[in-house]
Structure formats: structure tokens, C-alpha cells
């Protein structure tokens, strides 16, 4: 199907079903129950899932396949956001030209940065990309203020000279982003008993683009080009002596992953038309690295899992406060309850970053292959158990 192997087609299908049904799947708890706090089926959160999924898929094409660890990928996301907002300001509120421009501009930007950075490898490459990203960040805050609007961030205003469209909407406000008339913010709410399911136009646009991005990444992974990228990671010396020039391959991977980041940035701006320099900061770059590693670098599904995982728990953890904690531990005796709350308190709410950092370390130390590897290990364990119970000779697992 779609020119994919059966295994890959199944994976794509699973992701398609999951993203399309996300408003149901992510809202398993009735909205008036105590567990509703674990729901994630809100339009803006779901949008973030898929947008960062796209970002991580793109990052994985570079890092997962070639092993080049970029610490400056957020710069491309930021550039994409700025381009999209400018498109909204100048051309039209339709998201298509905005997204196209953000992909193209981010790609061009990645071409320049990649051309320079890829002259080095290993840690030097990481530091070069980091330096470039920090430079972009510093410039966006200072000199480039006419383009980026500095600390305030770039926003739409009532006197934007929109060529195709109006500066002011009929009700006197700023027009909203749309796709041929479908407003990105429009949401259809469905009440089913105590459940509330929300279907958001913007989310579905992002989800379709995620599927396209995911499909393309599968094709790249299985292509001769993808094989060459893995060869870069595995042994550059042998690659050279096999008559292959590694640099254009890595540069192509860098530009492709930069364009993915630009797409993600463009989508962020399409959902909420503003762009700020903080999107380019190196902690933002670190976040996408974390998503990819946590999910499983070099695997197809890993980055999507990682992005969803981190964005979901970011949302949940940030919402938890001491009251919620006291509810949780209410079954314990008073002293123990207070003790538990004190223990857990630093890790939730504003302490999400601390949890994130700890998780980061734990994954790198104990599970370098990420969630996907963890899943495989558990799967193998079960299979072995089963095989042992059947007392049949263990089936040879085909090498991946």
C-alpha cells in the first residue's frame, strides 16, 4: 500500500487512525469526573502534539539517521513562525501561502547553516549549530527588531496591509487564520452523555500534515538515500572509500529536517498567529532532542511518541498544584499525606522542567533506544516467556 512494506503501511495506518480519532482517544474520562484532569483532547493541546510530532520527525531524519546532533534546530522553527506571520500580515490569512513560505525560508536558512556547520562533525558540529542558533536568537531580540518585533514578538495588528484580504474583519477585529474560508479556530463540540469531544479544524489540518510528514519520512527511511544516511552514521571512512561523498547527503538531510522544523513553525503560527524569539532559544532545541531520544532516535514512530509523551506530561504536570496533590494522597494518614505532598511538590506545577531533566537523564542512562526500545524489550520478554511455556525451540527473531 502506498508503495510501502506491509509493516510500514500498518504503522502508517495506526498513526492515521490514532490522529484522526484523537479527540475521542485523548478524552477517555467524562468531563465532570475527577479524572478529567488527565484528558488531553483539547484543540490547542492536540495541535501541539502533532506540530511537535512533525518537528521531531524532521529532527530524527537528521539525528536518527546520520547521527549528527544539532543543538540549533529551534532556529528553523522560529524562522518558520516569523515567515508565516509575515505572510499573514502582508498577503492573506489563508494558511497555505504562510506554510509554504515558512517551509521554503526555513529550508534556505538550513541550507546556509548546514553548509557551514557540516564542514565539521561530532561535537564541533553540535557547537556550531548551537552557536548559529544562539546568534539567530540574539539577533532576533536586538538588531532584527524591525522584522521580529524584538521581545514583544511578532503579532498581527489592525493596520496590516493585507493584499488579498482585509485589514480589519467585519466585526472590527483582526481577521483569523483560515483555509479557504474554514477558520482554524472553529471547533465542533460533540456532547455524548457526560463526555465532550471537540473537533477542531486547525487540529485536523495539522494532523493531515503530520501524516504526510510521517509518510514522507517512512519513504526516506526505506530509500537508497536513507540507506546512505545510515551509512554516514555507521562508518564515514568506509563510505568515502566506497566512492560516496558524505557531505551532500548530510546537507540534504539537514535541509530536509530544517524544512520539517519550518513546517512545524509555520503551523504553530497558523494556529495562533504570533512568533517570538524564545521559540529559537537553545532550551527549545534541547526539547526536540529530548523528544526524539525519549521516543527512540532512528526509529520511525519514536519521535512522534516522544513528542506526544512530553507535551502530554508537560500539560498534566503543569496543572497539578498542592490541592490536587492533597486530593491524591487524601487516603493516607495526615502526616504521611503532607510528607508525600512535600516530596512530590518540586516535580509538578512549575517544577515540570525538573522532571523533564530527570527523565532526560534516565532515558539516556537506562534506555538509550528510547520508548520504542523499551517496548521491544518488554515484547521480547513476553515472547521468550511464551516460548519457554510452549517448550518449543525459540523462533529466530529476524534481524531488524
Amino acid at each position, binding site marked *: 500500500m502506498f508503495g510501502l512494506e506491509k509493516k510500514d503501511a500498518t504503522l502508517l495506518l495506526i498513526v492515521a487512525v490514532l490522529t484522526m480519532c484523537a479527540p475521542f482517544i485523548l478524552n477517555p474520562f467524562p468531563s465532570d469526573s475527577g479524572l478529567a484532569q488527565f484528558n488531553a483532547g483539547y484543540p490547542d493541546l492536540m495541535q501541539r502534539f502533532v506540530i511537535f510530532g512533525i518537528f521531531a520527525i524532521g529532527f530524527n531524519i537528521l539525528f536518527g539517521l546520520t547521527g549528527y546532533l544539532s543543538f540549533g534546530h529551534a532556529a528553523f522553527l522560529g524562522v518558520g513562525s516569523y515567515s508565516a506571520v509575515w505572510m499573514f500580515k502582508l498577503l492573506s490569512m489563508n494558511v497555505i501561502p504562510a506554510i509554504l513560505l515558512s517551509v521554503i525560508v526555513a529550508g534556505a536558512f538550513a541550507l546556509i547553516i548546514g553548509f557551514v556547520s557540516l564542514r565539521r562533525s561530532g561535537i564541533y558540529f553540535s557547537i556550531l549549530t548551537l552557536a548559529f542558533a544562539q546568534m539567530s536568537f540574539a539577533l532576533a531580540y536586538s538588531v532584527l527588531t524591525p522584522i521580529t518585533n524584538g521581545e514583544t514578538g511578532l503579532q498581527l495588528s489592525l493596520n496590516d496591509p493585507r493584499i488579498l484580504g482585509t485589514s480589519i474583519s467585519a466585526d472590527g477585529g483582526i481577521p483569523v487564520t483560515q483555509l479557504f474560508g474554514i477558520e482554524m479556530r472553529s471547533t465542533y463540540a460533540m456532547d455524548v452523555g457526560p463526555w465532550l469531544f471537540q473537533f477542531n479544524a486547525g487540529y485536523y489540518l495539522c494532523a493531515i500534515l503530520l501524516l504526510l510528514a510521517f509518510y514522507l519520512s517512512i519513504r526516506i527511511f526505506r530509500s537508497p538515500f536513507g540507506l546512505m544516511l545510515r551509512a554516514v552514521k555507521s562508518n564515514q571512512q568506509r563510505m568515502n572509500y566506497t566512492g560516496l561523498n558524505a557531505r551532500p547527503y548530510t546537507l540534504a538531510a539537514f535541509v530536509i529536517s530544517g524544512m520539517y522544523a519550518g513546517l512545524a513553525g509555520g503551523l504553530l503560527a497558523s494556529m495562533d498567529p504570533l512568533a517570538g524569539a524564545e521559540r529559537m532559544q537553545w532550551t527549545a532545541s534541547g526539547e526536540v532532542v529530548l523528544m526524539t531520544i525519549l521516543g527512540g532516535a532512528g526509529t520511525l514512530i519514536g519521535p512522534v511518541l516522544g513528542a506526544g509523551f512530553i507535551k502530554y506530561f508537560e500539560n498534566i504536570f503543569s496543572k497539578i498544584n498542592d490541592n490536587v496533590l492533597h486530593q491524591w494522597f487524601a487516603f493516607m494518614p495526615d502526616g504521611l499525606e503532607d510528607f508525600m505532598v512535600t516530596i512530590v511538590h518540586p516535580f509538578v506545577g512549575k517544577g515540570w522542567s*525538573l522532571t523533564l531533566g530527570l527523565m532526560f537523564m534516565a532515558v539516556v542512562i537506562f534506555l538509550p533506544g528510547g520508548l520504542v526500545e523499551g517496548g521491544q524489550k518488554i515484547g521480547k520478554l513476553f515472547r521468550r516467556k511464551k516460548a519457554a511455556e510452549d517448550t518449543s525451540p525459540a523462533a529466530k527473531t529476524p534481524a531488524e
Partner: protein
Amino acid sequence: MDAIILQILNGLDKGSAYALIALGLTLIFGTLGVVNFAHGALFMIGSFCAVTVQRILSVSFKTVDPSKTDFLGNPSTYDTPYVVHWFGPEFGAGIIDWSVPLAILFAIPIMIAIGFIMERGLIKHFYKRPHADQILVTFGLAIVLQEVIKYYYGANPIQTGAPEVFRGSFDFGVLLGFDPNVIIYPYWRLVYFAFAAVIISAVFAFLQFTTFGMVVRAGMADRETVGLLGINIDKRFTIMFGLAAAVAGLAGVMYAPINAPNYHMGMDFLVLSFVVVVVGGMGSLPGAVLAGFLLGILESFASMTQVIDLIPGINQIIIYVVAIIVLLTRPRGLMGRKGVMEE
């Protein structure tokens, strides 16, 4: 001329901090082959040692003063730090005033302990892992340390004063024969520079004149050979890590009066220190020191209004621009040895 000297002086304090952090980074990279992204966090922890010592010394008890009342008619209270109570008003107040330099004594054991724990507990397991893994795990550690500090000390910068005698500025230009009021320089920055110079010399002397230092230098040149000699190099490298942590910590302690400690200062300095190491040459100690001062001074030159008028924003990016140029034209850095991680 006076403007040039002024900018050089202005660059010295930042340059000193860069040099000290870069020195530790290089020591760790050169000996252990590990890229430590948490080194900036150690610098930050050092700064917070100064904050902590000042707070500890200022711990006070309340005394009720019945002779005065506040506007509600209650007897007013006043705070007396225990230190003042124990050592008398003059000496006790002096101790509090000197809390930043005193924090050095407090910081040394703490930083060495943190360094030991980090190396034995975490870094040790990453010697044979790829550089990317080392970067990632130390990056995670940096986030953790930063967030822990943020949790206990809050997100706002904490002003930490230098001792009374060193507050204020003096006319440095007069000493050099310039007109008065041309080159005004804060005392503490000069103290910081002198302090950095002492630490750097001490590290170099330690490496040059002790057997321990000799082994470490040999280890930096060729880790495997030293291992073959049967020297327990790992233990020495642990000590080395502790030393590097202490250097970063001390740099942080003394920097507290210059830059009010905040939780993200580590990250800010780390990125720049990495650039410094790269410019100086991975694995070259003199290179790190030289590049630290050079870039600090360069940054201060780029901050001159005349320069900013010429190239807007140059002060923000000068260090990165230099790093990119150096990496592309002379990848081993100013003083790096040939072949050390060039590709």
C-alpha cells in the same frame, strides 16, 4: 588610547570568568574525554554558595525594644545576626560584610564533593559512550541542577554585595598617567581579575610541578599509554574532575557581586564557554585561558557605541562569529594540538 585601555579592562572580568570555566571544561575534556554540558551549572552553584553563605551569616534573632513602638503601639523589634551577637558589633558585621570572600572556604569542599559525586555516579559510566550521549546526559543534569536551584532560591536574581572596601570605583587612569576621570574602574572587578589570575596560575603550577600533574598531562596527551603504565589513572581523573568543579565553583563565588546570581546564569555562561574552548582549541589549557580573555575583551570592544553604530548588534554575536570563523579556518583552534578532534 584611553578608550582602548578602558575596553580592555572592561573585558577582563568577563574574560576571567570565561577563562576559568573554559579551563575546567578543557581539563575535563582533555583528561576524561567527556564533553560536560553541566559545567555552567557548576559555575552557577558556586555563585549560589556565595548567596548561601551570606544568608547563613545573616541569620538573626529578634529582640524586643520596649523603648520604641511602631505606629500600632506595639513594641518594635529589631534583628541581630547571631554572628554580631557572638563576635561583637564590629567584628561580626565585618564577617557578614566579607561573606563573599568567606564563601570561598565554604565552596571548595562543596564543589569538590559535587565534582566527585558527579564523576563517580554519572560521568564514569559515559567514558565509552558516544559524545552525543555525554552531551545529552550532562545536558539533562544541567537542567536538573538549574531547576533545583530555581526551586530553592526562586527565579529572581539575588543581589550579593562585595565587601564594603571593594565597593565603588577608583581612577585607574591616573595610575597610568592619564587625565583623571577618564578610566574609572570598579575595585571588585580588579579583585576578580587578580583572583582569576591566582587560580589559573595555581592550576598550571599544580599540573607542571607535581607528579600528579605530570600524570594528568601525560593522560591528556595519550590516555591509553598511561593506562598501560599501570598507573591508576581513573582515580586521578576523579580528582581532576573535582578540581575542575572547584575552579568553576570559585569562579562563580567571586562573580556573585558582579552579576547577581540567578538560576539561568550557568546556561548563559556555558554556551559562551564552550565557544571559548573551541576557539582556544579542544584540550589545550593555555588556549582556553587565552581565548577566554581574548573573547571577553573582544566582546567589550564590540559593545562600544562607535562599533555598534557601525555594525548594529555586533556586541550580541561577536563571539559566535569569531567561533564560526575559527572553526572553519582553523578547526583545531588557536592553540589546539593537531589531530585532536579535528573532524
